[in-house]
């Protein structure tokens, strides 16, 4: 048994201190009320203990003032919890615009992670320090949950849709990645690591991984293969809407409602096209349910995303090309070029190459 055991988790993301501060506030209030109640109960029980069998204490029926006070004060405190908690929650649910995208596909009982440049990993996620990372997650079977205690983030990974989470690591290191939603026999084994690396190391690591075919390129291939372009084309023969610049746009549906074209919407458009019909089009698009895998759908989405009008700042949200060059070995730093890493990777067998 280990004798050096932690009592408080690592704090390694921008969110973590925010959560911890609210937690300390809650702890303080709770400690105050628990001690107050316990003390009162014990003191009363001793001070007013029955001294004779014929004791008859005074009758006290109550006090409106007290009732009002001990309803209003806790309510006020509780509302402060609410506001504070809600603020953090909003931050957690709003990934910054300049986030790096990582796609996550969960299945019983492993995590498949895919970087924008096509690098794939299993049960291990490498991320650069200080850069917001946005996770787009879906599941192939049942519900899982992506949980990194050191970052204080958690999000259920639900089949049939995309969930989003984000974090920005503030401390290099290796942190637990847990599946926290019960998902069957090896739920407890569906764990992995998040490796937070200095940006430069991350670049080296990425370069070593190849990342030849980007996600978008794979998506473009699928787009051809399934003949999507027979309907979705920029010319007059198009029977379906033009998908250029679709991502992030507000679409008017035939029911009159509007909806923002995000990942979930595009996914649904491919797998259940009639559910949300674009205004002015007939429900002729066939469903691709069962024909395209979850990973395939992700690739197509990345492709549709890449059809944005070029905009280097946010645009495709990939690293600027210059950053992707292998970093030169600087003096005083351990050489971690691609050559050194390759054999290690093959030995570990933890990373797949994009085929």
């Amino acid at each position, binding site marked *: 048994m280990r004798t050096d*055991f932690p009592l408080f988790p690592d704090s390694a993301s921008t969110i973590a201190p925010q*959560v911890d501060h609210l937690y300390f506030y809650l702890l303080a209030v709770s400690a105050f009320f628990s001690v107050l109640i316990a003390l009162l109960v014990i003191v*009363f029980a001793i001070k007013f203990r029955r001294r004779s069998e014929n004791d*008859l204490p005074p009758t006290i029926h*109550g006090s409106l003032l007290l009732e009002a006070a*001990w309803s209003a004060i806790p309510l006020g405190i*509780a509302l402060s919890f609410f506001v504070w908690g809600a603020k953090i*929650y909003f931050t957690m649910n709003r990934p910054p615009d300049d986030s790096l995208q990582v796609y996550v596909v969960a299945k019983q009982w492993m995590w498949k992670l895919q970087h924008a440049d096509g690098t794939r990993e299993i049960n291990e996620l490498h991320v650069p320090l200080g850069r917001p990372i946005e996770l787009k997650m879906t599941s192939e079977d049942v*519900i899982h949950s992506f949980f990194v205690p050191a970052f204080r983030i958690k999000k259920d990974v639900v089949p049939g849709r995309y969930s989003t989470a984000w974090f920005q690591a503030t401390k290099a290191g290796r942190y637990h990645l847990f599946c926290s939603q019960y998902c*069957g026999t090896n739920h407890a084994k569906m764990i992995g690591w998040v490796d937070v690396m200095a940006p430069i190391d991350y670049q080296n690591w990425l370069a070593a991984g190849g990342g030849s075919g980007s996600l978008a390129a794979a998506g473009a291939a699928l787009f051809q293969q399934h003949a999507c372009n027979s309907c979705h084309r920029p010319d007059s023969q198009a029977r379906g809407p033009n998908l250029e610049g679709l991502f992030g746009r507000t679409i008017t549906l035939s029911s009159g409602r509007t909806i923002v074209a995000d990942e979930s919407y595009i996914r649904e458009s491919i797998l259940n096209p009639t559910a949300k019909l674009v205004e002015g089009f007939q429900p002729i698009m066939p469903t691709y349910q069962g024909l395209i895998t979850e990973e395939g759908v992700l690739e197509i989405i990345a492709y549709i995303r890449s059809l944005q009008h070029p905009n280097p700042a946010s645009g495709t949200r990939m690293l600027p090309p210059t950053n992707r060059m292998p970093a030169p070995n600087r003096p005083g730093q351990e050489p971690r070029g691609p050559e050194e890493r390759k054999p290690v990777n093959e030995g570990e067998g933890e990373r797949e190459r994009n085929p």
Partner: protein
Amino acid sequence: MSAELTPPLPETPPRTSYLTAGYGVKSWLLTRDHKRIALLYLASITFFFFLGGLFALLIRLELLTPEGDLVQPETYNKLFTMHGIVMVFFFLIPSIPTVLGNFFIPMMIGAKDLAFPRLNLLSWYIYMVGGLFTLWAVVHGGVDTGWTFYAPYSTVSSSTHVLAAAIGIFITGFSSILTGLNFIVTIHTMRAPGMTWFRLPLFVWSHYATSLIFVLGTPVIAVTLLLVALERIFHLGFFDPALGGDPVLFQHLFWFYSHPAVYIMVLPAMGVVSEIVPTFSRKSVFGYRFVAYASVAIAVLGFLVWGHHMFVSGQSVYAGLFFSLLSFFVAIPSAVKVFNWTATMYKASISWRTPMLYAMGFVGLFTIGGLTGLFLASLGVDVHVHDTYFIIAHFHYIMVGGAIMGYLGGIHYWWPKISGKMYPEGLAKFAAFVVFVGFNLTFFPQFILGYLGMPRRYHSYPPEFQVLNVMSTAGASILGFGYLLPLAYLFWSMRYGKDASSNPWGATGLEWRTTSPPPTENFPVTPVVDWEPYEYRPKTEVAAVG
């Protein structure tokens, strides 16, 4: 088990009591007397409690080491599932209502029985049939979905006896519905002359509120399980995304019942505490009306907060906001109750008997459990602690530390009335102490584990969590021992205990104004109530009434 509960009384009591009104198995299994039915429930519930406790012990033994080397992962998953199902649906939900509520609601309002005695007996049979289905599932290999039955795991993925367990809970649900219905109608129509709503004991108020939840919530869990069954049998795709369903809808339906159900589990215990505290303080409850209204407020508001179990499920951020806000609102009536009980003890005449010890334990542990509920209702913090041991600790503090303390307190408090015998006071105090210590040792470390990030439903875990888990397991063994003590001495007291007088505590309720144990028709003459609740008179006068 029921036969043993018919103790041949050493001396024939002066009047025949409900216990001596008939002998033999038939007089129990076909009885319509609410008091005998309560004892049937007592026996069955005790069985399920120890069954659930056995599963808990195995869970704790497995978690002694990080490697997960005692049982297979499949087995572990079945253990916590069956632990949760048995404890929630077959022990805690029926516990106080069907035993103490059944026994004492008619007596407290001065009625001869519940409005529908046959329905009451039927409820017990339905409960037993549901229990047998579940036991069948347990014996034939178990279920591994967690007590929450989340789809699509439960509908597509799991290959265990989900159907049998779901049917068992479905059937038992009707027992809950019928019990709640019976209570509501009884409280509305069967009150003795003079027993106005604001003369009702708070125990009755809290059972009225509980019954509202039974009646309004239970049908929804029934239909939810029906949908799960349909999806499993006929592949109707209500929840499976592969068939076009939405798994989050399942969670809405499930928690629409199961959040209010947590108040089913705690409201009756609050009712018990509201009886015990004034009795052993010999003083009227502070703020009677506020405590009464708080019960109803908890029941009503409790229906508006179910989504706080789904903050990370992918429900809308705004729905999360709504549910978080209302969760804080529902904490206020609970706070009001805690403060009123405490204030009742001010300037009181407090007698340190076992029921009072349990009541004091309830107040303290419920406060801790409830306050940690506020951590969970705070959106930002819940994201971190959701589905970790923090949740486990939160609800065990309320359900084991709170509700079971209330239940044990109530059993001790009314034991003289139920059995006509006194329990051994010294031993009982010792047991209460053991339970309190064992409980805290078991579950306090789990708060720390939870914030550290140990996920729940984990069969193995990273080694740095081991020390706290060992503490928890040690506590559980102490706790288990503490629970065996009352089982033993209460049995013992049925034969060897001192005879109880009709009102050993000098309490005010109507149930104390008849013999111990009471006759079948409860009161020789229908009582007429002309006093306020918890109106304490000098000892001599009380004795005269008894």
